[in-house]
């Protein structure tokens, strides 16, 4: 039949929208401070510390593409960090690389379990993910505080020094957390765009009834998106713990808002049916770049929030108007 296709061109502009917003911001940053546009600042500092939110936001892309929402990621992060640190402490002074490897496995497992809990309550209990994950957000933070006895949990400086390179180290010049983000994004993109599961995620997010009538196990798909979210939080935490070697009740606070914002700025719609992995990573980076620029600039400290909020809204306006144009 009449097959015309300019698919490529159109899709690319849509996908490029968050990158355009990011680019404009980076150009702005170059004016604010001469050191902004250095490898040390943009990659070694900013990109590296973006890694937690970026990885969590990649998970959130799945949840949101399927029409769900997860407000509990910050608390899952704290809880996973708590469990991981307690495990590492339990090893005493001789704990070494082997134990760290096991702890990494544990973190991912605990993250997945938290995601499983969210998914089960949402699907089996048939209640809005907003409330479910608000509930687990409160619950998990409280469990962390209980584990930490109200304070913080830290590992010994020696053990921390062994583990530290996972955050501060580089491989062929690129920080390991940045590489991790790229790897997670690649796997996620493959999963979302090239597999049956990914297609089903989009289908469930576009129209749950159609998905059900097409023989898709809707609840199973949703469940898996929450598990993936949990696994991503687990991975993020395995990068977070080596940075300071400790966690306290402020760990992960407001991460859910940052992750969701990153996903939305990246071009994924909150109502489901789309998912843009690369956009999400760009969105997470964009948020961190805004923070970086503001610290480097000389805005009144009290007004930093006002500027930040305004830039986020403007970035969204740019992004969405570009997406509509395409």
């Amino acid at each position, binding site marked *: 039949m009449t097959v015309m296709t300019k698919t490529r061109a159109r899709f690319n502009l849509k996908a490029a929208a968050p990158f355009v917003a990011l680019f404009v911001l980076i150009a702005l940053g170059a004016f604010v401070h001469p050191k902004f546009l250095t490898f040390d600042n943009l990659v070694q500092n900013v990109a590296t510390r973006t890694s937690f939110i970026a990885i969590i936001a990649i998970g959130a892309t799945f949840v949101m593409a399927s029409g769900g929402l997860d407000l509990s990621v910050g608390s899952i992060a704290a809880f996973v960090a708590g469990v991981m640190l307690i495990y590492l402490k339990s090893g005493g002074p001789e704990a070494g690389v082997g134990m760290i490897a096991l702890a990494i496995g544990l973190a991912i497992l605990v993250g997945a379990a938290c995601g499983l809990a969210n998914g089960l309550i949402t699907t089996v209990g048939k209640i809005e993910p907003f409330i479910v994950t608000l509930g687990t957000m409160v619950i998990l933070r409280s469990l962390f505080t209980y584990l930490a006895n109200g304070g913080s949990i830290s590992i010994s400086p020696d053990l921390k020094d062994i583990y530290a390179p996972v955050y501060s180290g580089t491989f062929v010049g690129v920080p390991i957390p940045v590489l991790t983000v790229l790897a997670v994004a690649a796997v996620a993109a493959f999963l979302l765009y090239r597999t*049956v599961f990914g297609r089903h995620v989009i*289908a469930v997010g576009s129209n749950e*009834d159609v*998905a*059900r*009538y097409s*023989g898709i196990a809707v609840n199973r798909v949703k469940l898996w998106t929450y598990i993936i979210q949990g696994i991503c939080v687990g991975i993020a935490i395995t990068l977070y713990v080596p940075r300071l070697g400790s966690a306290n009740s402020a760990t992960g606070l407001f991460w859910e808002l940052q992750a969701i914002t990153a996903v939305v700025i990246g071009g994924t719609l909150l109502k489901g049916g789309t998912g843009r992995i690369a956009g999400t990573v760009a969105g997470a980076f964009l948020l961190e770049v805004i923070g970086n620029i503001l610290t480097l600039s000389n805005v009144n400290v009290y007004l930093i929030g006002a500027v930040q909020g305004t830039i986020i809204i403007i970035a969204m306006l740019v992004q969405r108007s570009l997406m509509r144009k395409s």
Partner: protein
Amino acid sequence: MSGVGAQIPVVSCQNLSHRYGPVEVLSDISLDFYQGQIHAIIGENGAGKSTLMKILAGHLRPTSGILTFDGQQVTFSSPYQAEERGIVLVHQEILLAPHLTVAQNIFLGREIRRFLAVNDAEMNAKTVRVLKDLEADIAPDDLVENLSIAQRQLVQIARALLLPQRLVIFDEPTASLTPMETDALLKLIVKIKASGVAILYISHRLPEVKLVADRVSVLRDGKLVESRSAAGLEPVDMARMMVGRDMAQLYPEKILPLLRKMAMDVDGFTVPGFVDAASFRVGFGEIVGFAGLIGAGRTELFEGLARLRPSRGNASLKGIAFQSSPKAVMESGFVYLSEDRKGKGLLLSQPLGTNLTLAALEKFQVWRVIDRPKEAAALSQAFDDFDIRAKSSDMVAGQLSGGNQQKLFLAKMMLMTPDVIVIDEPTRGVDIGAKQQIYRFIAKLAEGGKAVVVISSEMPEIIGLCHRVYVMRSGRIVAEINQDSMDEESIVVHATGAVKAVFSAVCV
């Protein structure tokens, strides 16, 4: 037909064209619509009928060309402006707010007030009256989300009828109606016409067109190919004008299966609230029809079997009890095609290829990766097999014309190569040429040894296609009619429970 010549048309369009992006879907259309005249527009799926109607009713702005109203040039920037002048469109697609009641929907945007408050009592009363005219059994305070497709269609018609009217446009109003409601609606349309209103009528049911139309215009591929008086025009002529060639016989020859191996056996099957102890069987190679009025419970019966709603009772497929999840039922070879293609059939915001392969996606993977070339090949195959007319293959499903959506949906479910296929309203909104193709396709399935169930509200379709018919009424199977005794009257008698059918010649 009143004295057309001297009169000023209520609405007239001159050299109207419309494009979606680079795609021209209407070119250079000039037509006049007069009061007291029923003007039918016919054409194949995707010919541009709905697009033209949307332009007339202010939903779309034409790319070029002019519209006049009572001889004055007008431009509408919203449907509301058109409605204010009495131009009302009954959409082909259901456009109702599901969370509001029937009466609230009917008066949405033009509520009757009493002081500061809305006057629900009066709106309900008016709703009752107009629904009665339509012979629709719907309460004004029913929530629209609880209504069936057909009932929603009636509500939508009722909404249009309550507006002050100069030109009423019906875009396939009867596609989901049964003969009874169709009959009532057509009578009503004739009544409205008599009150001096211009009427535009679109339908793929050509006998209906013959029955009511004063004038017939034919669109083909966005162009006006003919516009003439309906007098003396027979459905076969119309079909020829639409497709540009002579139509062969609509229904394929019935080939009765010799060996009746049982495909499914249902005994005392209940879908709580909808179906009560239904028992029936379908053999391989058979085409079994399910007839009944709106709300008879046919849809629910098969949704129950497909485990898409809670259900209980004995049912076996190929000798084994039905599976318990929708996915498992499908994998065991039973496929149900919903009557609600927009709500349950297609992902309107997703590309055609995604939609096509969605249900059978497992077949399109190599090493757990989706095989995109294979997917693309399947799409062009489906375009050919089902004659899907899309101006470009990177459209999303929502941009297809109604009939082409139906064809894409069929193609999607057929990719699962099922053994037992239940098709709910297989040709709803499909043009006559495509209908013929779909009937052929169904017959071929049966010939190939599949079991086919056809749920349809079009009586001729049931009779022309099926080997055997079950008739449902109020959630029960009330009759089984075999090939030899199959005629409209006997079906309608069972469906309505009337002693003798009160039945006009509408659905010949």
